[in-house]
């Protein structure tokens, strides 16, 4: 009998297996109700959390939630588990693990050594016993540094992806949003475009355009066109200037199949990008973080590939896929998927904090697309709350878009102004190389604190002249 049980007063709650126990212990969200895996009552949920607290972390090494034989993500998790790194917590239950993580003795260095010893399921399990403040406090201890042309993830830094999307990939329209963003200090994580079309020549034109802009103004950042990984491989084969390879990933083999990918093709793409040697040298070694992954709770259920698991556990498993390929950036696009998965601001905020915590604990450079769609019960105030909390939690990066309005993807994410708000109230700064560039370009004022200059930077005067007279 492999079941789990917890008794509350006269009533005992039974959970058939670890997968069910995890799902019932998950804080309420629409996607788990839609999947039919959520707790039936508030009491059952807490009973499940109490039972989960008693489960030894070791149990996750012997009882897998998605079958090993039929799922390559499970095989990746099991086969790459580092027993030595796991040793310091091997004797703990999930409940003890929460206490251990929160203890004053456990610092960032300890957590970095532990990361290879943790599986996504262990991390997801402990997150289910945590309040929002616990998720913030522990994530804030983690330090994950990645490099391409700049250094991302240092303490006291908050980077941004400049997202200059345009509904028809119009070059001048994209350039207008890029300039707007740069002048607001945005773009140190990446300048990343969601193209309107996956047409390969068009993707290559956009790659060429971003490469030209980054080189012309010597910006210590990197570019990315968010097209399918096979498209990017084809672009590399045709000689395109690819900095980062993008791909959406999920936590099961079947869900990844729905995205048209598997682990092999991700490995192939990474090798192709590394072969271009486009990253800067750091201490004599070229940066080897060449991947940009996006994830989000609910993607597995939407392709009916969740294996009866809750959406947060499957999301954490996507981070096992991500960490295998040493990404520069991982972005949980938390509110994009819609209210059938995360119904309102409360669920979006909780999911954003969970994803950031789980990613960081597993050793990932975790960022968050703090966002919502117009059919979700959420608004700008909810995004302000999540952005502020993520800033406190030490989030690696957020999005930056003109006026919060993505005119290509039809959703709302954080604006250039929003990122400056977070930097201002929390005393956060951009990546060091990018910060020096902003000062050199006279976009921000020199000295302590992060302050925009009031004048228009000379280096862009000629470009603005072209724009004002051109067709």
């Amino acid at each position, binding site marked *: 009998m492999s079941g789990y049980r917890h008794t509350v007063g006269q009533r005992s709650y039974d959970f058939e297996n670890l997968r069910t126990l995890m799902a019932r212990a998950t804080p309420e969200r629409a996607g788990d109700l839609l999947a039919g895996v959520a707790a039936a009552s508030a009491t059952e949920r807490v009973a499940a959390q109490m039972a989960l607290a008693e489960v030894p972390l070791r149990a996750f090494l012997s009882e897998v939630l998605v079958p090993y034989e039929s799922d390559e993500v499970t095989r990746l998790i099991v086969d790459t588990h580092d027993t030595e790194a796991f040793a310091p917590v091997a004797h703990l239950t999930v409940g003890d693990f929460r206490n251990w993580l929160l203890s004053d003795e456990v610092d960032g260095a300890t957590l970095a050594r532990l990361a290879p010893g943790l599986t996504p399921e262990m991390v997801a399990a402990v997150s289910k016993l945590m309040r929002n403040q616990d998720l913030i406090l522990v994530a804030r201890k983690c330090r994950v540094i990645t490099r391409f042309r700049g250094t991302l993830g240092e303490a006291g830094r908050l980077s941004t992806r400049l997202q200059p999307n345009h509904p028809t990939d119009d070059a*001048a*329209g994209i*350039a*207008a949003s890029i300039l707007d963003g740069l002048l607001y200090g945005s773009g140190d994580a990446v300048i990343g475009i969601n193209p309107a079309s996956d047409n390969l020549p068009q993707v290559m034109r956009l790659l060429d355009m971003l490469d030209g802009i980054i080189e012309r103004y010597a910006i210590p950042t990197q570019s990315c066109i968010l097209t399918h990984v096979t498209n990017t491989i084809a672009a590399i084969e045709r000689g395109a200037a690819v900095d980062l390879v993008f791909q959406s990933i999920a936590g099961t083999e079947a869900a990844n199949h729905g995205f048209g990918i598997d682990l092999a093709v991700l490995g192939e793409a990474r090798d192709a990008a590394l072969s271009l040697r486009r990253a800067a040298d750091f201490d004599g070694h070229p940066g080897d973080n060449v991947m940009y992954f996006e994830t989000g709770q609910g993607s597995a259920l939407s392709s009916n590939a969740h294996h009866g698991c809750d959406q947060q556990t499957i999301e954490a498993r996507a981070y096992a896929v991500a960490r295998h390929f040493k990404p520069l950036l991982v972005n949980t696009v938390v509110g994009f998927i819609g*209210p*059938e998965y995360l119904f309102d601001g409360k669920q979006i905020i909780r999911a954003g904090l969970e994803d950031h915590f789980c990613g960081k604990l597993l050793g990932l450079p975790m960022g968050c697309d703090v966002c919502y*769609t*117009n059919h979700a019960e959420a608004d700008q105030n909810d995004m302000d709350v999540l952005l502020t909390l993520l800033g406190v939690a030490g989030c690696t990066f957020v999005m930056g878009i003109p006026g919060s309005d993505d005119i290509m993807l039809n959703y709302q994410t954080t604006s250039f*102004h929003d990122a400056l708000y977070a930097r201002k109230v929390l005393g956060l700064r951009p990546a060091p190389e990018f910060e020096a560039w902003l000062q050199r370009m006279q976009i921000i004022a020199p000295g302590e604190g992060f302050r925009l200059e009031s004048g228009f930077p000379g280096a862009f005067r000629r*470009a603005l002249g072209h724009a004002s007279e051109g067709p």
Partner: protein
Amino acid sequence: MNTHDSNASDTIIANPWQALRRFTAARIALGRAGTSLPTAAQLDFQLAHALARDAVHTALDAEALEACLQGAGLETIKVRSAAPDRNVYLQRPDLGRRLSEDSCHALDARVARDAPRPRRDLAFVLADGLSARAVQAHAAALVSATMDLLRGQDWHIGPAAVAHQGRVAIGDEIGARLGAAIVAVLIGERPGLSSPDSLGVYLTHSPRTGCVDSMRNCISNIRPEGLSIPLAAQKLHYLLTESRRRQVSGVALKDESAVERSIGSRTSNFLTAE
């Protein structure tokens, strides 16, 4: 959103790159109060969001829509999905794809009344989707414009269903029960901040429960600032004609579609111009 620079007071720092607005509808050059949004830009955004929210939650006025369709010479029938209200609809996409039990009976009764079953080449379904406003504003006009193009080409068109709380796939069940060879679902798309009234059309040949997205052809962004009604009607007419001729829809049809939109966007940019 063009009002916030002209009356900038001393405390607003305007952005001298407003000329770039002609290249994009993105909210660039908004200026700043400190580093925050100036009041006017902030309220412009709130208004756009309010319009999009209202588009999601406004109920469809089916009677008004039916009157327009009847004016265009179509019989109509009202149906509901299995999602009883908006709140359930938003959280249970599976229910929005199925007909309610009552609507199943109503449709079957209509079909029985017409026995023996007449030939039906096409049935229109008008569903509120995520923007009843879009359907209310553009759907009847698009049906009418499409019928004008189909006239004289031997199309037998069945009754038009007006569906409450419907998702795209509700057309599969409706089309199957009506015995229609092709179903065209006109549905309100997810409203964007600057597009609260965007209509989409999904065409499916041989509709039946369980059809997947790759079996459909889609025309999207139909609204005054996007794809116009006459152009959308031309595209739909083309797809209908080809779908009937080749007895397919979806990926197989799309590949040979000659109406590929020319994007017509600029390929050079001012940031790297010499």
